[in-house]
């Protein structure tokens, strides 16, 4: 691909320091926006760039900003969502750790565009070591006149504060995040009213992901038009993809939207193929919440077109044969992975993280976990598989926040694409039962011994 945009200077030693960052063109977007542009023009530039929310939903950022209630006389807030907890996703952490000033710069420009004077970064509690890195970056920006009162001699003032979470996946949902920021339990709110009208402390609020806000600086620098020139169709610009699982080179990669999935997995520039020369079995392309796809469907769509890393291409085929780009948490499985075990693992995650507000999600996730546990441990019944599909269907769409869908999709998609594997577990309980907890890992890791992986699927 071409030049990286977000991670442009990541290899420069000491880039975390203000001086070094500044000498490589850092904070130029702030000067450009504050001194040469009006807040409306900054907003228009972001709209022109076609930037879409990088947290998972992919909602156009310019549009989200335009919803902010500007008529209200209450203060407005910008909240940066750094509560990165989606399994498979570790891009924001990487960005904040190596380029904290990229985020601070984006926050200043975005706050200027939105007319915000107080900005909070809600960072997940486990990233405690990042708190100091960010605090340091904020202090440096302040000492150099880019934060505080009357920035660069204009009328614009801004304070950025850090707020740590305390271990709750659900706080990544924007209204739960606001509740948590107010010092409450992270229970998502019913929308509408949307945060743009009634957000933090009932004031108009915009909540954006770290990567989204970090992209605002480069957009102002290069111009919205130029940013929109990158990527493919409505998926403009670049995206951070965090790749993990059974691949040779896990890590965070910045790709230009439109990169073929096949190239991403097998090129030595990126994941460099599957570990130990094994075969690709399945991929969850956008963090654990999006549907899993088997090897043939992740590489090519049902229409036999190349699958690309864009919002549209990954959604091609809907839920029957597609998935989503989500947060860009790219989890790769080779043929030794047991899909039943993996689905059980993810469902346990959702049961653990459900806030408990809505019954379908609170009860449904626990129920699915029990049924999956039965199947995985050789106690499954034939009707269990359809039961799982049925529970998933009744959770989906029946909850206040998208968490319910996120819990239902992994189960529904695993059964849709790997039904034989579930059936195998039910049909041969004796074989499944002898594989105990610790053994399974040892065997699958070193000898590929899970009997299920011995059969050919699809």
């Amino acid at each position, binding site marked *: 691909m071409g030049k990286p945009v977000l991670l442009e200077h990541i290899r420069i030693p000491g880039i975390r320091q203000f001086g070094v960052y500044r000498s490589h063109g850092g904070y130029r977007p702030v000067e450009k926006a504050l001194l040469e542009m009006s807040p409306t023009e900054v907003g228009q530039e972001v709209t022109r760039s076609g930037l879409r929310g990088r947290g998972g939903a992919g909602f156009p950022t310019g549009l989200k900003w335009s919803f902010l209630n500007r008529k209200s006389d209450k203060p407005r807030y910008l909240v940066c969502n750094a509560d990165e907890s989606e399994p498979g996703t570790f891009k924001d952490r990487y960005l904040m750790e190596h380029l904290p000033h990229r985020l601070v710069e984006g926050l200043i420009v975005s706050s200027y565009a939105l007319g915000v004077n107080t900005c909070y970064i809600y960072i997940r509690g*486990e990233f405690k*070591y990042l708190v100091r890195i960010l605090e340091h970056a904020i202090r440096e920006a302040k000492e150099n006149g880019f934060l505080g009162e009357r920035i660069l001699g204009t009328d614009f003032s801004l304070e950025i504060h850090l707020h740590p979470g*305390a271990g*709750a996946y659900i706080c990544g949902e924007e209204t739960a995040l606001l509740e948590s920021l107010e010092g409450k339990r992270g229970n998502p709110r019913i929308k509408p009213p949307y945060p743009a009208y009634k957000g933090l402390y009932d004031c108009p609020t915009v909540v954006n992901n770290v990567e989204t806000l970090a992209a605002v600086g480069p957009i102002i620098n290069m111009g919205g038009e130029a940013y929109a020139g990158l990527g493919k169709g409505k998926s403009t610009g670049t995206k951070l993809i965090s790749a*993990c699982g*059974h691949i040779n080179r896990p890590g965070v990669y910045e790709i230009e939207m439109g990169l073929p999935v096949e190239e991403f997995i097998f090129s030595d520039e990126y994941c460099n193929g599957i570990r130990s020369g094994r075969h690709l079995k399945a991929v969850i392309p956008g963090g654990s919440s999006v549907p899993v796809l088997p090897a043939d469907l992740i590489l090519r769509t049902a229409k036999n077109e190349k699958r690309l890393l864009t919002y549209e291409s990954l959604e091609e085929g809907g839920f029957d044969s597609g998935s989503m780009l989500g947060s860009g948490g790219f*989890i790769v499985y080779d043929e030794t992975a047991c899909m039943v075990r993996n689905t059980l693992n993810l469902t346990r995650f959702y049961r653990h993280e459900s806030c408990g507000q809505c019954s379908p999600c609170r009860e449904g996730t626990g129920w699915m976990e029990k049924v999956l546990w039965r199947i995985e441990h050789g106690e499954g019944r034939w009707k269990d598989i359809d039961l799982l599909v049925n529970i998933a269907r009744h959770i989906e769409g029946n909850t206040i926040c998208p968490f319910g869908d996120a819990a239902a999709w992994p189960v529904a998609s695993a059964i849709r694409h790997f039904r034989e594997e579930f059936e195998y577990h039910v049909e041969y309980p004796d074989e499944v039962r002898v594989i105990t907890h610790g053994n399974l890992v040892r065997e699958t*890791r070193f000898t590929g011994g899970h009997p299920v992986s011995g059969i050919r699927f699809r």
Partner: protein
Amino acid sequence: MITHRLHVKENRPVAFSEATLKKVRELIQQYPEGKQKSALLPVLHMAQEELGGYLSVDVMDYVASLLQLNPIEVFEVATFYSMFYLEPVGKYVIEVCRTAPCAICGGEEILEYLKEKLQIGVGETTPDGLFTLKTVECLGGCGYAPVLQVNTQFHEQLDQVAIDRLLDTLRKQAADPSSADLTWASQFC
């Protein structure tokens, strides 16, 4: 009748040090006037660290009085978030990530190894009070799997050798009182 620990108030005197109290006051300043409840999460982090390693009823009530909240407001928050411990824990809380990306890359294995090595189960503390073993959900280190955290310090790309080394280091650290911890109070500057 079952008496839950969460209902037992011991009436032990608890209080932050003067330095931490100053930090707390600064934290409250971050939020608009009258919204000091927002500081609850960071203050609970500091309370847990400074006042005994877990949130006893006494500590929660103290935090409530500090932020002028009802005790129930602190209680309901402390029970919601997984980073707050409501039971006593060891000096080092070892939390192993068990979510899928770690699990498929050896996470289950290192948990088994830790159990064997420390001779305790998940949720238990070693008799010397040094280690508590716990599991957590995704720590956001999937590319560096398997991952665990010790008092929110990350340790990544682990295998049995790395675990042995880690436990040795922690044992040495525990014997040396001058070894610095990464505390919440020191993180906020």
